[in-house]
């Protein structure tokens, strides 16, 4: 058995090896590399500055002996030290492609309800409806058994019904935090290495909501469908025993433990559409004797009811992914439109970088587009104070009407303009204001 000094020495030795195997980036290489972001077309002034910089860059690069990649595809890559890679091909991003999923034979996708429970074991999954009716089973997990805190998604993969791990919540994670989730106009995040649950407004204002109980670390938090409550998971620091807690999302009271303590292991399953929190008593905790698994639905007022499901494994929520999974921006938009009560429309007519969509607002079709990791290059339009506290948006003229824009986390959103109905300032500002609370991001200030 190694002692702690062996470990310290080994960590130091491994760090030195990592250093030797990493590839430093020179300033010239950074300048020659194309940043992995999409940008709107630059204005003429920036083009001139870019050309000038390129001239200087060329001189610097020549002086530094920099060699560009021979791909000729725009120069994305600059040759640095290309030591052999031992990294296996990484899995595809969940949320942009179909994740590793397991088939549900004999379960027609069209017959499934919108959501339900899934009893997950290493051997596979049993799918239930929310009323406990068994819907189907499948064997195996090609991508590994889903972790306790992950929701599942059921999708139609070319006529085959499959169940897999749902993409993470697209809510923006604030700096210093590890995860975020949004619902009902409330964004909550796990911060300070799981010590604290924080509520974040669209303006970026943060308010602490709940500190982790002594000896525990928050591992997941989900706002209720109406945004007024939170359902959180925590694990003990010593033996990863789980507990689930329910509390007001404004932090006015400490969360109340629903399941899990020193003798039992429990976790939060999720929210029912009627606003009840579902939790599971998984078994005995921290080496205690095994106890039968049970599932409860708790009203925020305090009444609990046991649900007619006796899982063999860990219970998860699943939902139906109609039309596939979509990327983060698509999912953010669809959730925002749904929660704001807006009808979506007309994506085929809209041209957008990473999101091309539209909503219907008082009979008018209003385009909604977004660019991931975009940079705002304002043409000097007016500012509008959105009807969201602390948030302002820009409004500018573009062909086809007035367009509202705002920076939402790292993304730039545009509302209004061609090719849909001609829009005016009040319309684009109103649509932006309606969507912003449900995009679960921080809208950067425009002035200053």
């Amino acid at each position, binding site marked *: 058995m190694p002692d702690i000094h062996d470990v310290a020495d080994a960590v130091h030795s491994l760090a030195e090896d990592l250093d030797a195997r990493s590839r430093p980036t020179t300033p010239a290489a950074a300048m020659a590399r194309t940043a992995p*972001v999409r940008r709107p077309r630059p204005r003429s002034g920036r083009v001139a500055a870019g050309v000038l910089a390129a001239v200087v860059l060329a001189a610097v690069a020549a002086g530094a002996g920099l060699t560009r990649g021979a791909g000729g595809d725009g120069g994305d890559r600059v040759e640095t030290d290309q030591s052999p890679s031992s990294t296996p091909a990484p899995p595809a991003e969940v949320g942009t492609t179909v994740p590793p999923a397991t088939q549900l034979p004999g379960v027609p996708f069209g017959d499934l309800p919108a959501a339900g429970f899934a009893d997950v074991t290493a051997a596979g999954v049993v799918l239930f409806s929310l009323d406990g009716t068994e819907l189907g089973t499948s064997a195996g997990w090609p991508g590994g058994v889903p972790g306790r805190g992950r929701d599942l998604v059921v999708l139609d993969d070319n006529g085959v019904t499959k169940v897999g791990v749902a993409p993470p919540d697209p809510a923006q994670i604030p700096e210093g935090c590890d995860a975020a989730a949004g619902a009902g106009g409330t964004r909550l995040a796990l911060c300070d290495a799981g010590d604290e649950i924080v509520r974040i407004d669209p303006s970026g204002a943060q308010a602490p909501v709940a500190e982790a109980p002594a000896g525990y670390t928050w591992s997941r938090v989900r706002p209720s469908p109406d945004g007024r409550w939170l359902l959180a998971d925590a694990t003990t620091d010593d033996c990863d025993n789980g507990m689930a807690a329910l509390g007001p999302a404004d932090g006015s009271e400490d969360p109340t433990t629903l399941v899990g303590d020193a003798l039992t292991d429990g976790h939060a399953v999720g929210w029912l559409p009627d606003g009840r929190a579902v939790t599971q008593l998984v078994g005995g905790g921290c080496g205690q004797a095994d106890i039968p698994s049970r599932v409860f639905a708790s009203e925020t007022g305090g009444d609990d009811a046991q649900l007619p499901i006796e899982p063999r494994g860990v219970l998860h929520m699943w939902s139906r992914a109609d039309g596939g999974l979509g990327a983060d921006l698509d999912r953010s938009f669809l959730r925002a439109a749904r929660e704001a009560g807006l009808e979506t429309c007309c994506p085929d007519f809209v041209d957008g970088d990473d999101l091309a969509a539209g909503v219907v607002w008082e009979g008018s079709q209003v385009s909604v587009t977004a660019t991931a990791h975009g940079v705002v290059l304002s043409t000097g339009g007016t500012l509008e104070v959105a009807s969201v506290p602390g948030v302002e948006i820009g409004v500018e003229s573009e062909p086809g009407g007035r367009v509202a824009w705002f920076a939402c986390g790292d993304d730039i959103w545009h509302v209004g303009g061609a090719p849909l109905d001609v829009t005016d300032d009040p319309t684009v500002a109103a649509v932006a204001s309606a969507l912003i609370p449900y995009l679960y991001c921080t809208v950067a200030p425009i002035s200053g």
Partner: protein
Amino acid sequence: MEDGDRAEDRVARFGALCAAVEPGLRRALVAAYGPDLGSDAAADALAWAWEHFERVEAMDNPAGYLWRVGQTSVRRAAGRRRPWPGAGPAADAGGEHSYEPGLTRALAGLSERQRAAVLLVHGYGYPLAEAAGLLGCRVRTLRNHLDRGLAKIRLTLGVTVDA
């Protein structure tokens, strides 16, 4: 001529920024994501810094911000579920390295932030405040990552003696 001087000055200031942040940024990202993804992420972050240099230059903690840019780059390039390659298969086999067998596996079991915190502080010897700056978090948060990361490593390796 004036434009040329300004451009040269911009390049020079960017060079100074790179000299200040590149080693720590790369080490943090390599610790979190491995030598290949981490190196690419550091390069992407610095490329982003060049494109947004005025904004980055004005930041109190550009390294902490660029750490986040690097994280985003990794997420875009490799998705959210990434095995940590560590020092490669040879490490755990004990071959050419002097590591405690299983250390790579133990580090792979940590979260990215925990791994970065452990390697920055205990591997590279960064002071807590500097390591916290590189990861864009408070010292208290870094301590939490460190404590939990080390506890998991000790548990995985069967180390029972406290430091």
